[in-house]
Each structure stands twice: as structure tokens, then as C-alpha cells.
């Protein structure tokens, strides 16, 4: 365990930023987002929920795959070579760090997604323990301890000290970059385990898959859904993407970008659509997070960050689905 006085944090950040691209939670208008370090940025280490999640840096909203030059019907392809420099994100909370595990389980499983892997290898996650949950937090329901976040380095911030604990080799390397600013210590930060939120997650057993899928109240639960993608795009674990083309006038850039299962054209094919109603699309999102993903990965697809709770303009959220979903013979 190492520590640094809170007042020296600006020095720590400046020193880090000199050697690696450093992203920090900073105030941007009315929201806090991870932003590249700059000396006059308004760094915010109290807001738990950045509007953007760390997902942005590993599975960016838009990512070029390759360029196809078409000349007189002849195609030549060159893979995108977006340079990825090593970077570190400071201030990642426990939920968001856990969310990366969810993304890893998809993108680093066979076949591995090289784009994701490259970014994942380049990025160092410096987590920051939470002290107190906000009104929308429910990570503990998913077994996440907000005071013990994982990540390459874990940090705890008290009134006057930041504790620093490297957990991985990558974390060690980053620590070395600023070793002169950190002091070894035997102290350990006080860890208030905030109260555990309990949600009836038992019923989301993959064995119940069809019973859950056929639950009678999906329609009722989804009635207010306006089919925007706010919940999916603020979600640190949502992972669906679209592949599409941009014609630059001289070549075609094929890129992937986030997509949302809540959009009506997500599964639209030339000759039909297996999910024609919003209720079906709504169901897909929650079934995927709570049943399908766990069935394949032994982890829930939700980390309880609560961003979707705040983002939904219609007041819908996963907590309600967890609580209210009526499984025949189960609730």
C-alpha cells in the first residue's frame, strides 16, 4: 500500500500525464466525463457516475475497421491502423471496473476481438473506491464491493490522503512512473461497507430461461419505453455494435459503432424482423443482461451502476424489471 497527500494529487496527475495519456473525471458543462488531463481541467473525484463510461476507451462509439478503395470495380482493402498509445484512466469506480470484466468476457473470448484487445492492453485502469452510494447505486446487489474496486491499481481517497495499491504488473509499471511521489505505508483506508442492496436476482436462473422469456408482464413493464438507446449507450456493459460504411468520396471506410437492441431496425432483415414490438426489444435487453449473458459467462451483464436509472427519460430501469418481472409459478 502506498499513499500520497491529497493536496499533492495535482502533482501526481501532472507527473503521470507527462509519461502516459491520462484520463481523469472532469467537469464538462453539467456532467462529469473522463477527459484527457490538462492543468486547468476541473477534476472531479466526488461524482460517482461519469456520463461516459470507461467503455468509451475500449469499445469506442465509432471505430474504423478498414478502408476499401474501389476503382473501376476493383477493390483494395487496407486495415485501419489507428495508433493506440498506452493510457491510464484514473477514477474508475468499482462498478465500471467490473463492467470491463463483462466486456472482456465477450470481446476477449474466442474469437478475440483484436481492436478491443489492443486497447485493453494499452489501457491501465486506476480505480477509486466509493465511500457512499448515490440514490441510483445498486452494485452491491450484483456482489460488487464498491469499497474494494479491482483494476490495475486501486485507490482510496480520504479527506487528506489518497491510498494507492497496484494490483497487476501493468499497475506496478504505472506506479513506478510516479514512485517518487508515493510513500509506502502500513495504514489502510477505512472501508465502510455500505449497506447491501438486495434484489430478487434468484429468479434469473438460466434454467428459467423460457419461463422468464414468456413472463406475462413484459408488455406492461415496457409500455413507457420510447425506444431510444439512452440506457444502452450510457451502460458500461452494453456491447452491441453495428457495422456500416462511409463513403469518403474516394474510398469506403467500414466502421463499427454502438448499436442498441432497443432500436426497431436492430434485427430488421430484408424479409422480416423477429422482434416486431417494443416489448420484445425491451425484453431482449434485460434477458440478455440477466439471463443470456449469465448463462454463457457465469456473471450478470449488469453491474448496478445505475446510469440507466438516471438516463431513462421515461423512468424505466433494470431494477424495476428485476423486482416486477412475473415468472409463472415463481413470484
Amino acid at each position, binding site marked *: 500500500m502506498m499513499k500520497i497527500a491529497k493536496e499533492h494529487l495535482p502533482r501526481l496527475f501532472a507527473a503521470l500525464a507527462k509519461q502516459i495519456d491520462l484520463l481523469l473525471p472532469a467537469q464538462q458543462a453539467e456532467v462529469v466525463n473522463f477527459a484527457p488531463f490538462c492543468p486547468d481541467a476541473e477534476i472531479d473525484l466526488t461524482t460517482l457516475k461519469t456520463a461516459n463510461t470507461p467503455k468509451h476507451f475500449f469499445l469506442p462509439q465509432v471505430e474504423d475497421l478498414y478502408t476499401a478503395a474501389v476503382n473501376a*470495380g476493383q477493390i*483494395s482493402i487496407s486495415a485501419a491502423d489507428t495508433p493506440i498509445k498506452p493510457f491510464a484512466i484514473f477514477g474508475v469506480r468499482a462498478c465500471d471496473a467490473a463492467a470491463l470484466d463483462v466486456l472482456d468476457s465477450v470481446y476477449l473470448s474466442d474469437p*478475440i476481438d483484436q*481492436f478491443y484487445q489492443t486497447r485493453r492492453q494499452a489501457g491501465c485502469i486506476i480505480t477509486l473506491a466509493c465511500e457512499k452510494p448515490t440514490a441510483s447505486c445498486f452494485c452491491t446487489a450484483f456482489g460488487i464491493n464498491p469499497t474494494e474496486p479491482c483494476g490495475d491499481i486501486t485507490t482510496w481517497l480520504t479527506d487528506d490522503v489518497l491510498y494507492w495499491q497496484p494490483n497487476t504488473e501493468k499497475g506496478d509499471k504505472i506506479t513506478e512512473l510516479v514512485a517518487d511521489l508515493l510513500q509506502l505505508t502500513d495504514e489502510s483506508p477505512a472501508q465502510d461497507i455500505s449497506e447491501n442492496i438486495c434484489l430478487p436476482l434468484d429468479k434469473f436462473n438460466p434454467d428459467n430461461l423460457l419461463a422468464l422469456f414468456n413472463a406475462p408482464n413484459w408488455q406492461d413493464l415496457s409500455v413507457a419505453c420510447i425506444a431510444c438507446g439512452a440506457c444502452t449507450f450510457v451502460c458500461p456493459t452494453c456491447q452491441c*455494435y453495428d457495422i456500416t460504411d462511409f463513403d469518403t468520396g474516394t474510398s469506403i471506410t*467500414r466502421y463499427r459503432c454502438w448499436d442498441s437492441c432497443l432500436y426497431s431496425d436492430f434485427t430488421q432483415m430484408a424479409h422480416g424482423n423477429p422482434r416486431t414490438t417494443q416489448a420484445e426489444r425491451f425484453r431482449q435487453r434485460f*434477458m440478455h443482461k440477466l439471463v443470456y449473458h449469465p448463462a454463457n459467462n457465469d456473471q450478470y451483464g449488469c453491474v448496478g451502476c445505475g446510469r440507466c436509472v438516471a438516463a431513462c427519460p421515461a423512468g424505466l430501469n433494470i431494477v424495476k424489471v428485476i423486482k416486477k418481472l412475473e415468472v409463472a409459478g415463481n413470484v
Partner: protein
Amino acid sequence: MCKPSTDLLIPQVGIITHIRQETPDVKTFRIVTTSGAKAFSHMPGQCAMLSVPGIGEAMFSIASSPTNTEFMEFSIKACGTLTDHLHRLAIGSHVTIRGPYGNIFPMEDAFKGRDLLFIAGGIGLAPVRSAIKYVFDNRTNYGHVDILYGARSADDLVYRHEIEENWASQPNTNVYITIDRPQDDWSGHTGFVPAYFADIGFAPDKMALVCGPPIMIKRTLDALLTAGFKKDQVYTTLELRMKCGIGKCGRCNIGPKYVCKDGPVFRCDELDALPDEY
């Protein structure tokens, strides 16, 4: 061993070397790489992503047999932006191709040594053709082969020439063809595939493979079960919208399965465990 997905998302350039008009709206394209080789090896049932940059990309089942080491064939029905565009392409045009994607028909497992019944409707014969040709090229590994194929009209029968000239004359093979409604120049059977299936009265001792439009698959499955087939004797394929082909983009997700990776081939008893969203 992990195969990097970048290889799978980034295609090779393919050249159309031959085009055959199968029906008024189906063409079969023969595709090789720019060096003239087959783009990759595959097994029956697998698919590939074909694309014209700037137009779109879509998954197509490979209609040629793995035993063909020179080229791949795709039978494509014009029914959307990309497919319409493909139909306008001439020999020598470039497309992009990546794959293979998806699982395979159990040619080397469940099917091996068994009598086989192939049932297809319309363009659904394309993936089945790969399996049929694979069987013919490894004839001794399989028992009796029945092929039941139907289409809306005689004009809509794909590979008609090949079926009549080649398949029908294969040893230990019966071919049954039907079209939905009678028409002037047709002397063969008329009626829907499930009904014809029931009329013929196949013994339920074979392995069956059914491909075609969803409604045809559903009706044929019913007929197969009525005839005494068990669900674990019957295989079919699903078709959903796909983008990545490697089980990441989430589009073809049904239950815990990604059709592009875990499918498109499913044994019918496996389908029962999946939500009815296909």
C-alpha cells in the same frame, strides 16, 4: 488457440468468376480470391460474409461443397439493397468475402453412416446443396439419400439442371421435386413440401436436414414428427440479421446463442430450449 477476430472482421477481396441465373431472382456466383484460389476452407452448413463496400455486407450460406477446392459458390436471391446490387454485377467484378462463419451440419458425426433425408424449399436448397455434394463426394460414408425439394413454381427451382442431370442419377439416391401449384409446362408433382413428404411416407429411421422459409420449416417439422421422426434426428438452419459473424455484435442473439457463431445449424431439440424469436 485463439484466432484473432481482426482477421475475421477484415475481409479478403474476391472476384466473381462465373454467374449462373438459377431462377428469375436467384443467381449463383462463383467466387475466388484475387490470386485465383478458394478464399478459405469450410464445411457444409457454414456461411460467409459477402460485401460490396459502400453498399452493404450480409451473410450467405456457402452453396458449394468443401470438396470443391477451387472456388466457392453462393446462390443469392435479389431481395434487398446488397443482393440487388450483387445481381447487377458482372463477371470479373470484385466483392469482399470473409469467413467461414457458424457451425456445421454433422456430416462427420451424426450423419455419418446413416440414411439421409434432405428437405429444402426455395433458396433453402443452397446450404443443403453443400451437404448433398459433400455426401456424393464421400458416398461410401453415407447410406441411402432422399432429396425432397419444392419451390413456388418450376421457374423458382434452383439448381434444376444439376438436380435432374446429376443428383437424380447418383447411386442409392431418390430425388423428389414438387412445386406449389400446377403450371402448364410442369408434369411433375404439385403441392407443398410437407404434404408431399407425408404422401411419400419416409421411414423415420434416417437423419433429416430441413432448410427453407420459416413457415415451410415449421410445417415440415410437424410432418416429420408425425411421421415418427424424433427431434434429435432433425437438423435445420436459422437465419437472423448478422453483422460481425463472430458472436460479438449482438444482433443475432437468441437466448444464450449467437446464430452466427453457435448456429446457423441447430438440431430441432436444441431449438426447443431457445426463445421463439426466429
